[in-house]
């Protein structure tokens, strides 16, 4: 059951893709609840993800690194909803010039490697901050991703939380792979349920002496019934008529 905010964010992100003329609607929709849960999740009225939309460069903030490039419109929608001053014209790749975007990147698995470096800096400086990084499952096919994953475990980067959006289930043992490298793995049962997602983030924050992987099995085009799990919508840009139909479903 989607919350009003989840519905609103879906529509905003899809409209953004339509406006930009660039995007991957189905792949983006699998991630949107994971980002929403991070930015809006609370524990006893305290933010799980420390941030201040009116002070994007606040020194004590936590960091969210978007490695999964297809989810960028979802991040923009969440940032705008959260109160960041998101510009009118938005870049099609993550860029640090946009308030709330921490890393400039244009290639797969780049954000993941950056996030490991940032968590390493946090450890070196003994800062009380966390780095959350969203990666797509396909990014784990890159050698550099596993190099970074190994480095994070060897250096016991407990302030690093990697969220793996598994929207294309394969017969591979994600949990065993990460655990064999020395990571803690938290598997979500329903990666579109806010309570489940927030619970995962809370547990990740408490992990000591090892990095955490949140394994999030998601659905492509989640929340848009006529497109869910249909590959033809994975990289689609919805037409005006389709957007109207989605609006009537969601709102």
């Amino acid at each position, binding site marked *: 059951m989607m919350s009003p905010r989840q519905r609103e964010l879906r529509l905003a992100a899809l409209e953004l893709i339509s406006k930009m003329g660039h995007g991957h609607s189905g792949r983006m929709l699998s991630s949107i609840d994971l980002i929403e849960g991070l930015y809006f999740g609370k524990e006893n009225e305290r933010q799980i993800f420390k941030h201040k939309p009116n002070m994007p460069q606040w020194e004590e903030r936590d960091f969210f690194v978007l490695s999964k490039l297809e989810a960028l419109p979802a991040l923009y929608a969440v940032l705008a909803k959260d109160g960041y001053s998101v510009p009118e014209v938005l870049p099609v790749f993550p860029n640090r010039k946009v308030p709330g975007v921490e890393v400039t990147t244009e290639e797969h698995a780049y954000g993941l*490697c950056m996030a*490991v470096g940032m968590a390493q800096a946090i450890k070196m400086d003994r800062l009380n901050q966390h780095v959350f990084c969203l990666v797509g499952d396909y990014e784990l096919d890159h050698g550099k991703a596993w190099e970074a994953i190994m480095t994070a475990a060897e250096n016991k980067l407990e302030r690093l939380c990697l969220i793996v959006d598994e929207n294309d289930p394969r017969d591979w043992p994600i949990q065993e792979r990460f655990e064999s490298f020395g990571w803690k793995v938290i598997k979500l049962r329903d990666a579109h349920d806010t309570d489940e997602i927030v619970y995962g983030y809370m547990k990740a924050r408490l992990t000591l002496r090892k990095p955490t992987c949140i394994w999030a099995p998601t659905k492509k085009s989640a929340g848009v019934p006529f497109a869910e799990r249909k590959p033809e919508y994975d990289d689609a840009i919805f037409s005006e008529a389709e957007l109207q139909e989605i609006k009537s479903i969601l709102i």
Partner: protein
Amino acid sequence: MIDIKLTQIALKIKNLILIDVSFPKGRFTEFKKAYENRYLHMPCRASSAGILAGGLSNFGKVVVLYGDGFNDCNLPDQTLNVKVLKEDAEGSLITLEEDLKAFGPAVLLIPEED
């Protein structure tokens, strides 16, 4: 020589971090002895080390990369202070400290060693 030189410079540049991808052992024994917390040995992991250096540099660090596999220093964010050390017949250590402090990513040529 480069090991000693960087160890000396790191005393003055407190935010200098060294990433060494030498295989199988690290090349910078003196540096590691002096600043264990500022030395990362990532054997043969050049493809991730260059980007990871960008993440460290996001926190105001000057990150030095050494080892095979770094031919250039192409980072999409030109504000990151990442320097690649490359051995070259025309390399020099005279201006190394100033070059390390200079803004942005760059390749610095150092003398070849046996």
